[in-house]
């Protein structure tokens, strides 16, 4: 059988001289020698013994050369060849943060929460006062440009140097739904509470979640966790099955002096339960569920190998903190009744 040197080199992806090839083939018990040829083409004559019934085609000879050369020896050139190869240019990657968010969205939906999607823009009042929080001027991204048609009382909005977010006027117009749009939310809670306020006639209980996670770079790889959960109160009958909840997954914007633009997004998750009673134990169950689906064990306080819950003071002991590996990564509890009143959630 005659096999060309270019065929062998071409299929293996190496550059061997004819002497090397004949040496390898002889080592494999295929007697080979270079063929005296009138052409410039370099051929090798192979004498195949009768015991090698598997040699049918020149590709079988090529394989013997590759075996003698060593499959693993080809590895040294793989990286360079692969990177330079135009045939393998498509080698893409999805963002791990978004992939993980999608996985968690599905897990939370499987236990009966419904996803919602709300606005990023909100009023400063909603971001702080209506949540019984104080604005320490260090978290909210304030919109600096305003439409002339907005009410006079917005003229006095204070701009923070280097911390304002410019939005295309068309988009701003599109997103406006009230005259109080002066800030980018620093928490998912205003949007999620508004969903409940505007769905008063929806059968209760309502279970709502909002996606919320810290950036991957802030915590060890492979683990991502909840920042906020809450339970709230509203409405009529607890006889309706739990199947109807709502959830969403979104980013929020907070001030961060370490970024070149002075702000960054945090990926977070928020959830809300609304029924005849506060439902703290249901939200607590959701915390446990999300931790389990991330492969994180429940441990005793102080143990850094998993997560545990500790008390935090807000509405007399109804708020809790989630501690994971010694870090405070989340909070859950009953929404303060005054906040419920602020968002006009039934019925006071």
């Amino acid at each position, binding site marked *: 059988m005659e096999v060309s040197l270019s065929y062998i080199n071409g*299929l*293996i*992806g*190496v550059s061997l001289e004819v002497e090397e090839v004949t040496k390898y083939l002889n080592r494999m018990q295929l007697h080979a020698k270079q063929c005296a040829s009138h052409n410039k083409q370099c051929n090798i004559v192979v004498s195949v013994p009768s015991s090698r019934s598997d040699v049918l*085609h020149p*590709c079988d000879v*090529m*394989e013997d050369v*590759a*075996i003698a050369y060593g*499959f*693993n020896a080809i590895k040294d050139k*793989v*990286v360079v*060849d*692969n990177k330079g190869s135009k*045939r*393998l240019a*498509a*080698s*893409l990657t*999805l963002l791990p943060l978004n*992939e993980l968010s999608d*996985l968690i969205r599905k*897990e939370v939906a*499987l*236990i*009966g929460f419904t996803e919602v999607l709300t606005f990023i823009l909100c009023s400063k009042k909603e971001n702080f006062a209506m949540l019984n929080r104080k604005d320490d001027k260090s978290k909210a991204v304030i919109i600096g440009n305003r439409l002339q048609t907005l009410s006079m009382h917005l003229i006095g909005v204070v701009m923070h140097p280097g911390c304002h977010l410019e939005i295309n006027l068309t988009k701003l117009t599109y997103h406006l739904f009230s005259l109080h749009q002066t800030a980018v939310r620093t928490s998912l809670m205003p949007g999620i509470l508004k969903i409940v306020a505007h769905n008063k006639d929806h059968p209760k209980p309502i279970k709502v979640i909002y996606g919320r996670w810290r950036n*991957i770079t802030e915590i060890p*790889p*492979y683990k991502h966790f909840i920042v906020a959960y809450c339970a709230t*109160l509203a*409405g009529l009958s607890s006889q309706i099955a*739990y199947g109807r909840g709502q959830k969403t997954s979104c980013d929020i914007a907070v001030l961060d002096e370490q970024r070149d633009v002075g702000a960054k997004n945090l990926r977070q998750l928020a959830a809300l339960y609304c029924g*005849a*009673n*506060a439902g*703290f*134990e*249901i*939200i*607590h169950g*959701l915390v*446990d*569920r999300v931790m*389990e*689906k*991330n*492969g994180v064990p*429940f441990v*005793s*306080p102080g143990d850094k190998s998993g997560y*545990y*819950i500790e*008390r935090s003071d807000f*509405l*007399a*002991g*109804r708020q809790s903190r989630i501690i994971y590996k010694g870090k405070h990564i989340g909070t859950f509890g009953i929404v303060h*009744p005054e906040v419920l009143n602020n968002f006009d959630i039934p019925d006071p």
Partner: protein
Amino acid sequence: MAEEAVLGYLEKNSEIRDSGEFAAELGIDHNEIVNVIKSLHGFGYVDAQDIKRETWVLTDEGKTYSSVGSPEVQLFFAIPPEEGISKQDLQVQHVDDKVKDLLLQIQQGLDIASDEIKALKARKLIVPQTWKGYSLKRGPNYAPKRKKVVTDLTRDNFQSGEWKELEFKEYNYSAKGQPLEGGNLHPLLKVRAQLKQIFLCMGFEEMPTNNFVESSFWNFDALFQPQQHPARDSHDTFFLEARSTTKILPEDYVLRVTQVHESGGYGSRGYAYDWKREEANKNLLRTHTTSVSSRMLYQLAQKPFAPKKYFSIDRVFRNEAVDRTHLAEFHQIEGLVCDRGLTLCDLIGVLHDFFSRLGMTKLKFKPAYNPYTEPSMEIFSYHEGFKKWVEVGNSGMFRPEMLQPMGLPEDVQVIAWGLSLERPTMILYGIDSIRDLFGHKVDLGLIKKNPMCRLGID
């Protein structure tokens, strides 16, 4: 009543200096006051400071002496006045009972000199006693009246505004929350979804594998597998009884396949046997998804050539004995690249890219035999947990005897690889019996607790 008295008093006065005196004034037992103070302090209604006073209390012997006098005095008075005693024996005409006086003073709470205290203590007539009380001030949660304690914020107490007056019971944070009803995704299919994502990111498109019944022609013959190959025996393949034969095959292609099997061509000398059409017409449950690959490549060859990257993940069937690591049906993962001028080097490069996305960064390859690929390589990955090399898949370049009868150009090469879905899933999740994962005896608890699959993420 005691509670109301304490809270009411503090409403008008800044403090209660001494709980003992307070109890005496009200005519309430001091212990009752103390219990109330402890409870109020626990809830933050009052701030309580401990008061301790040490006093001396008579022992039983001491009480006897205080009522009837000390032994010495009793002896003196025991002498009959009439008889008298001899003058020489009489030493004392009169005696004062100081011991009795001291005991009576102690009983009345008066102060006694310390040296006399010591003397009485030595005779075990008195013992110390500690009295505990409190001085009180208003606490951070002070209110004139205690609030009711409830378990939860409810619609009723929220809407009525009563919540402002309520005291909520403490939560037990060492317990988990209420388990929520809901569904769970199967671990195997979660891994499959992530693998599909990986293939898409590498630019592969999915092949249609939605047909479990296949003809022997596409499953074996088109792949240049000889008809006498052991894999085509009935103890390795499920052959069908109903609809046992194939109806339609591309006849011109069948002719070329027949010829390349019998006498070769395209540079090959063939297998030199008599090829039988009836054998190729037999229907079976496909033994690998490469049968779909052969169909796709044949269709590709019917058009002007264009490079392609295909993948599939689906069920295949083998007539195998079932044990803890083998089933008669399982999921096969397959990927292939079809292009001009591909080399073994390209195959190795793709394998490193693919397996590194599964977390397998150390690979090595071993020669193997497969009838339709040449070269053929087994893929091994070093498992850090097992501390050994584990076979993870198979790979190779399709033979020219398979490709060229289809009509593909001579310089077109196809590189391909395959592995099972079950094996990496079991390794990933630490499952040691495949029946826990797949089939009638699947472990529902395992499906519920199973974490998300994050292959390809990070």
